[in-house]
């Protein structure tokens, strides 16, 4: 049964850990070696996951793709199990691709203590891959805790008062979420005697309703804290705005999507959605998520700090995605997953370009943006394009995904949801324009570069070109490109939706193989 091919699954987790160990023991002074190790490792990671897709493309296409790797004797009841199906392959792929670009950006961006930075970064990557690939609830708990623990030092990477406070708060709330998660998986173990997701999924119906409700409530508490949904959201903007730009992109762009994946995995595969809807909880969570979306957008409006504004806008988008997922229709899943990709690209691009534009200023207040539009014309144009995509301007990717979300709300006749999507876009238009107009204000003594010098002269363009700019341009290009050819994603999304709607396939394959 054991197939050597499947060892790639465990390599996806082990590779970043090994890289982190190597970077940890290497000295800070051999900068070039550290960078080489980092780039090699992240390229290999991307290669592994792409090779998995390419070599199994036929199986992926007809939604029968499945791989698993078991540590320990397969016949024993307690094993560590990793499984990859269409949904997790899709998420693993987009997460690895985004992290690859973020790493290339941060190679240039992070200069001091680069080895510590990348060691922690790769540990977070390993934990993310682990929590996507795992087929076991306790391993999932361990990886979620690992994500929380390893991101905390990264938030406090620039040692000052604000970052330390944000990191402390982030860690407190993360750990409380972890305790709730632990309680609920231990309750599942006492009820069913197993922690493998497939076995739990097959037997969860047999638990008595009161205990089912308790388990679901603890899972919900844990995941809503991690996702930053309204009543417990205040740690998120502080944490996401305190850290260096690549880490903001990682937390806001990538990590929130991983928690959304875990939400889907738990509430559609492990605990089927019919059980959630039997307690009428999904209506409550849906309204809460929509309210959270509105609150996030409103707070973004009053924020005077650029990064904090972006983080609040993340709360708005995540609330919208969660709400549309809970509609539980095919159109809703399509819109939600499309918006997950769009938000991943847009928020990473926004945080990275913010980091690049405000590299020299110490804070990210709105007044620091003054004149930025004249100094870095081309990067700022990219920033504006991404802003417009986030608002939902027609030919761009953000419009397409928001359109499908809107269609899903209208199809289910949930008009409050449709209102929130529209109102969110309108509020977003106001707060992004505020910052963009600020950037084109000129003040005395500012030296402006003419557009000829900056862009149209090839010599200037290539001499000022670097990896950071390349990553920002690539993100912007992808956002424009996928706006026209979003059908590119229809096959992977359809197979992922098939996986969500047919948990029985997952159960059969894990238990049968």
């Amino acid at each position, binding site marked *: 049964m054991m197939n050597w091919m499947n060892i790639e699954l465990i390599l996806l987790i082990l590779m970043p850990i090994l890289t982190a160990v190597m970077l940890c023991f290497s000295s800070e002074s051999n900068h070039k070696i550290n960078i080489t190790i980092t780039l090699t490792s992240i390229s290999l990671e991307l290669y592994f996951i792409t090779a998995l897709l390419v070599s199994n493309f036929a199986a992926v296409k007809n939604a029968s793709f499945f791989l698993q790797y078991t540590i320990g004797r397969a016949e024993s009841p307690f094993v560590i199990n990793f499984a990859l199906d269409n949904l997790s392959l899709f998420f693993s792929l987009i997460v690895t691709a985004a992290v690859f670009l973020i790493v290339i950006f941060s190679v240039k961006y992070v200069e001091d203590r680069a080895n510590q930075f990348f060691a922690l970064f790769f540990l977070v990557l390993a934990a993310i891959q682990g929590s996507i690939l795992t087929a076991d609830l306790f391993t999932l708990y361990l990886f979620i805790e690992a994500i929380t623990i390893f991101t905390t030092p990264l938030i406090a990477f620039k040692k000052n008062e604000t970052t330390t406070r944000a990191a402390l708060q982030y860690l407190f709330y993360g750990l409380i979420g972890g305790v709730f998660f632990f*309680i609920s998986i231990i309750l599942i173990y006492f009820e069913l005697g197993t922690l493998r997701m497939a076995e739990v999924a097959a037997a969860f119906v047999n638990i008595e309703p009161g205990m089912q409700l308790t388990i679901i409530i603890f899972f919900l508490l844990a995941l809503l804290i991690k996702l930053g949904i309204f009543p417990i959201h205040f740690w998120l903007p502080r944490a996401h705005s305190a850290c260096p730009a690549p880490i903001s992109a990682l937390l806001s762009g990538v990590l929130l999507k991983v928690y959304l994946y875990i939400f889907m995995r738990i509430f559609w595969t492990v605990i089927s959605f019919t059980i959630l809807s039997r307690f009428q909880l999904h209506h409550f969570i849906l309204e809460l998520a929509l309210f959270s979306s509105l609150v996030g957008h409103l707070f973004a409006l009053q924020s005077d700090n650029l990064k904090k504004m972006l983080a609040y806008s993340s709360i708005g988008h995540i609330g919208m995605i969660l709400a549309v997922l809970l509609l539980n229709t095919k159109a809703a899943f399509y819109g939600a997953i499309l918006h997950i990709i769009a938000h991943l690209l847009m928020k990473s691009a926004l945080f990275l370009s913010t980091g690049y534009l405000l590299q020299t200023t110490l804070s990210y207040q709105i007044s620091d943006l003054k004149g930025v539009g004249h100094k870095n014309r081309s990067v700022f144009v990219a920033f504006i394009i991404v802003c417009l995509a986030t608002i939902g301007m027609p030919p761009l990717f953000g419009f397409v995904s928001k359109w499908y979300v809107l269609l899903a709300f209208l199809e289910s006749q949930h008009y409050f949801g449709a209102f929130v999507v529209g109102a969110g876009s309108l509020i977003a238009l106001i707060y992004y324009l505020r910052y963009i107009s600020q950037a084109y204000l000129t003040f005395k003594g500012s030296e402006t570069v003419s557009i000829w010098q900056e862009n149209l002269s090839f010599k200037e363009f290539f001499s000022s070109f670097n990896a950071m700019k390349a990553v920002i341009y690539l993100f912007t290009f992808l956002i424009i490109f996928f706006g026209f050819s979003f059908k590119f994603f229809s096959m992977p999304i359809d197979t992922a939706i098939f996986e969500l709607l047919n948990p029985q396939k997952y159960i059969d394959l894990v238990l049968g193989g």
Partner: protein
Amino acid sequence: MFNNLIFIILFMLGLYTLIMKKNLIKMVIGLNLMEAAVFLWVIAFSDTGGRISIHKLAETNFNFNDPVPQALTLTGIVIGASTAALLLTLIIELNKFTGTIDRDQIEGLND
């Protein structure tokens, strides 16, 4: 019943400390108390009065305690210890910057 009562009392005590106390170190103690309550409850709940370890399972029919909750708890304790260390490190760092470990004074500074 007794187990559940102790669990609820300890857990609520931890939650109370976490929410009501102003001292950050006391908040860490509260969080650890919550974790300890959960671990204690897991161990007490999984105790079926047996004592034999799992590797004799194949040859005997004796009553034995389920080792999985114990293993989970052990892992949980390790995580709890490391997170407590991380929290205390951050509190020390914060104390260097602000000179206080009072939650109200620290949170109200600049938002």
